[in-house]
């Protein structure tokens, strides 16, 4: 067996996945064609809140090629309620969540009827022939109004639009002091309200589901991030025996949290396929995706920061309203709670209180979107640190330095109760400042201000950390999350020396096939090419918690290491037996066992064969070297970094141009720098998109007016700058690879960097906030000093913060 010439971990391997993706030899769910397969199309409610008084399908049933038309009442008895796995409080209110509306619709886009036809064209044709009568109900859209006494209700049965209120108080928890006292005695107190606009994950591959029902079992292909969770939940919701259900996530075209879900359409396709006894496919249009796949963000954040005159922060108070939309989906209620631990960020705040109220509205349900709670928290704290700096008249970088955890302080237990294992904020910041040319840009800013240049320069800072590597199962349990956070891996040592690695993670663009191969190659001393990574099929990979929350490498990668170590431990026993020595004398280097102090060697491949044929094994040793392992982390991992953004703001038009963007991230040890850099690029792009471009806008009737890619502004190549990236490397202590996770870092960090830069450019003109997305119109209005722009439903242009907007 060939030994690897150099360590695979740390090497910029080109990806194995690419071969099929660049040639079109892909396996997207929508590619699947099965004999006799039917197509399902979904009729969706055009109104946000109404009683369904009648559904007439007579004409639709007679349309050519139509096999069946089903309504909510046809499926009411079997559809159950879509699962919510995160009841954040004991008294959380959760309305039943039907996959298809039975007598009431609660958001525009909710499924109302299904057509099953021979072709997708015929199924869609028949949708137009279905006649639904709606009796309008009052539409609830604005969170603040929704929680007032006497407000119209989304779910009258609940008696309120509040789902739950979740509180963390550092004095009560014993992790800090009393925040009210800190605010009352603060020498400086800054209060701001920020709006986290509603976003749409907008993965490029529209969702698609194919179900093949065979006898008493069924196979589902779905464009999902979570095949294992999906199988479990479908079984629990529908009462289908779990062992009769196989879920496969084939090639999946992006997710960003948007495919971390148990969707109505997955339930419906399964029910319909079983009912008709034929394979059924459902593939959404882009507009369906924008309307019905869950949305993200959507919070109103009231932030109070108290400090001494020297800039030392003494207390932080956070009051959130979080929009759940019409129903609670898989982890909807927990998303803002993930942020609870991150508002204090990298800082040594002594007192902290976080209060979040989850609110129902007649909008598409919200759930995880890249960062899930942590971008919101990071935005708020990094924005208000800039506001405090402005209030005190100090450089925002110096204010951060005054308050952050110094590298010699690690491990550090924060005011929200987490213990950060490692980090070096000084190093990352110093490197970012150097790459950015901070001082020169500040000098240019002064010059432009002095000259009254119509194009002003701003510098935005974001020094972030995040918790990822989700998650220690015990912590999840304590937070009332219904599942664990472990991950599983299995290694199959094939008789020819090739290796199959089975992982419970479910990649959809992250490159696990490449990175996991690198880990195995290093650990076992086998060639990178000899490792095949299997994933995403519950029949092949029966145990897994899938991919989200920047967890795959820190948790799943560690499971790979542990499984490989088990293979080696057994191989060592077998090798010792065959080389007739004590296992203690056996050394293993680059795929070869040797007897210490002798020239006797045995390649791993030979041990594999010996273990496979089992002609001569030690007593009590089972044939084969296969091994599996499950890793449950003891703690989260805490990537961090410093992002610096320079924007040019045209004060005459409000147009913002990002002139330079520098990020220095510390994601611990790196398995593949090429993949890490790519994750940072994409993450930063999505964070910039929130700052400048994207917003899900509803009209006053609750209709989503940004339901196409012409209206919802996913940035193109011309809308984004060149990113300068670099890394510092402080290994994580919570896993043997020393890795921290990188999937969400860029998104978490970049949004406040951009908005801080915009505000910094025009602060001298009286602007203290610009609401996201910072469109030219919003920036221009802020510059005109128009604070009194009434926010329309769902927020349009202008600030809802009486103290923000245009100062």
């Amino acid at each position: 067996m060939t030994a690897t010439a150099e360590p695979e971990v740390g090497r910029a391997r080109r990806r194995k996945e690419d071969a099929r993706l660049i040639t079109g030899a892909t396996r997207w769910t929508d590619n699947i064609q099965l004999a006799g397969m039917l197509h399902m199309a979904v009729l969706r409610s055009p109104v946000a809140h109404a009683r369904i008084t009648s559904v007439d399908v007579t004409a639709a049933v007679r349309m050519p090629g139509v096999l069946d038309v089903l309504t909510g009442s046809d499926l009411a008895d079997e559809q159950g309620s879509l699962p919510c796995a995160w009841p954040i409080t004991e008294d959380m209110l959760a309305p039943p969540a039907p996959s298809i509306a039975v007598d009431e619709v609660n958001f525009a886009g909710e499924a109302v009827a299904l057509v099953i036809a021979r072709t997708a064209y015929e199924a869609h044709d028949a949708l137009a022939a279905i006649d639904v009568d709606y009796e309008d109900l009052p539409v609830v859209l604005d969170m603040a109004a929704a929680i007032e006494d006497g407000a119209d209700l989304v779910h009258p049965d609940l008696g309120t639009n509040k789902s739950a209120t979740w509180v963390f108080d550092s004095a009560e928890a014993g992790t800090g002091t009393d925040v009210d006292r800190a605010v009352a005695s603060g020498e400086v107190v800054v209060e701001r309200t920020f709006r986290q606009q509603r976003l749409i994950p907008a993965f490029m591959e529209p969702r698609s589901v194919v179900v093949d029902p065979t006898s008493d079992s069924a196979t589902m292909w779905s464009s999902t991030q979570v095949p294992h969770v999906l199988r479990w939940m479908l079984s629990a919701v529908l009462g289908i025996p779990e062992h009769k259900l196989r879920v496969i996530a084939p090639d999946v075209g992006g997710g960003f949290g948007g495919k971390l879900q148990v969707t109505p359409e997955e339930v419906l396709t399964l029910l319909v396929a079983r009912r008709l006894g034929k394979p059924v496919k459902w593939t959404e249009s882009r507009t369906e995706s924008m309307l019905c796949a869950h949305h993200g963000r959507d919070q109103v954040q009231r932030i109070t920061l108290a400090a001494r005159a020297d800039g030392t922060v003494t207390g932080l108070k956070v009051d959130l309203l979080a929009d759940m939309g019409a129903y609670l989906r898989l982890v909807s209620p927990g998303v803002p709670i993930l942020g609870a631990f991150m508002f204090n960020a990298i800082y040594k705040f002594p007192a902290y209180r976080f209060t979040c109220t989850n609110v129902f509205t007649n909008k598409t349900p919200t759930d995880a979107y890249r960062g899930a709670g942590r971008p919101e928290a990071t935005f708020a704290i990094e924005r208000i640190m800039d506001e405090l700096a402005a209030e005190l008249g100090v450089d925002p970088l110096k204010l951060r330095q005054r308050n952050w955890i110094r590298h010699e302080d690690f491990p550090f237990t924060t005011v929200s109760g987490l213990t950060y294992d490692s980090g070096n904020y000084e190093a990352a910041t110093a490197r970012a400042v150097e790459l950015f040319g901070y001082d020169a840009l500040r000098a240019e800013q002064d010059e432009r201000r002095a000259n009254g240049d119509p194009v002003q320069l701003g510098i935005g800072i974001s020094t972030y950390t995040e918790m990822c590597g989700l998650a220690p199962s015990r912590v999840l349990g304590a937070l009332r999350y219904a599942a664990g956070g472990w991950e599983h891996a299995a290694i199959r040592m094939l008789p020819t020396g090739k290796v199959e690695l089975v992982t419970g993670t479910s990649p959809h663009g992250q490159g696990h096939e490449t990175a996991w191969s690198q880990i195995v190659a290093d650990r076992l001393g086998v060639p990178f090419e000899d490792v095949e990574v299997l994933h995403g099929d519950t029949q092949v990979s029966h145990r897994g918690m899938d991919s989200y929350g920047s967890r795959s490498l820190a948790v799943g990668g560690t499971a790979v290491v542990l499984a490989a170590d088990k293979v080696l431990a057994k191989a060592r026993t077998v090798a010792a037996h065959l080389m007739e020595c004590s296992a203690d004398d056996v050394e293993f280097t680059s795929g070869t066992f040797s007897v210490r102090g002798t020239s006797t060697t045995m390649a791993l491949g030979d041990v594999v064969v010996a273990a496979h044929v089992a002609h001569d094994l030690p007593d009590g040793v089972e044939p084969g070297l296969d091994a599996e392992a499950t890793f449950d982390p003891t703690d989260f991992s805490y990537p961090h970094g410093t992002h610096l953004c320079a924007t040019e703001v045209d004060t005459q038009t409000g147009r913002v141009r990002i002139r330079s963007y520098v990020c220095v991230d510390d994601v611990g040890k790196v398995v593949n720098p090429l993949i890490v850099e790519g994750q940072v690029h994409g993450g930063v792009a999505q964070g910039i998109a929130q700052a400048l471009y994207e917003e899900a806008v509803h009209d006053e009737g609750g209709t989503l007016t940004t339901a196409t890619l012409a209206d919802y502004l996913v940035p193109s190549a011309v809308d984004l700058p060149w990113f300068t990236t670099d890394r510092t490397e402080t290994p994580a202590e919570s896993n043997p690879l020393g890795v921290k996770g990188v999937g969400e870092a860029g998104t978490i960090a970049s949004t406040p960097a951009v908005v801080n830069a915009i505000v910094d450019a025009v602060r001298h003109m009286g602007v203290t906030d610009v609401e996201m997305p910072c469109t030219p119109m919003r920036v221009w209005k802020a510059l005109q000093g128009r604070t009194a722009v009434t926010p329309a439903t769902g927020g349009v242009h202008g600030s809802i913060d009486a103290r923000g907007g245009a100062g």
Partner: protein
Amino acid sequence: MRITVTVDGVDYSDEVEPRTLLVHHLRERLGKTGTVVGCDTGNCGACTVHLDGHSVKSCAVLAVQANGREVTTVEGLARDGLLHPVQQAFHDNHALQCGFCTPGMIMQAIDLLADDPDPDEDAVRHGLEGNLCRCTGYQNVVRAVRDAARRMSPGAGPDVERVDERAVVERAPLHTGGGE
């Protein structure tokens, strides 16, 4: 109506509904699933193919409009087992993650390079403006297209085919902060 379309060098003769979109004809009838559908408004460009050598969004072309014409998809680019230089450059520069936009992105990049064999960063960005990618932030796509231009330039010798795995590391120099 009956149409004959040459796709990736093979003639196909089929009866199609007049309203059938070219992309659906390619995917559903001809099995050319390398070309994908990402939206229904012509914004994302995932379905980009070449029609008589020029890029089109195949969701905005009717199958009947392709009658008697030649279509090239991402599946028809590799020759004798060798990747097209743009495909190779996408791989070498990590210009894809989930890969869903990639077929369209590659087809558009080839069209762009036919018009401008040596585009600067700005020209690449504008040339790809109609193709959305949600994963990469476009930076490595820009790198890949410029790298492909170099490989495809007249007189480019074997050296341009060489991939240096260290290049990416050197490009983003590692600075070790250390925790201790």
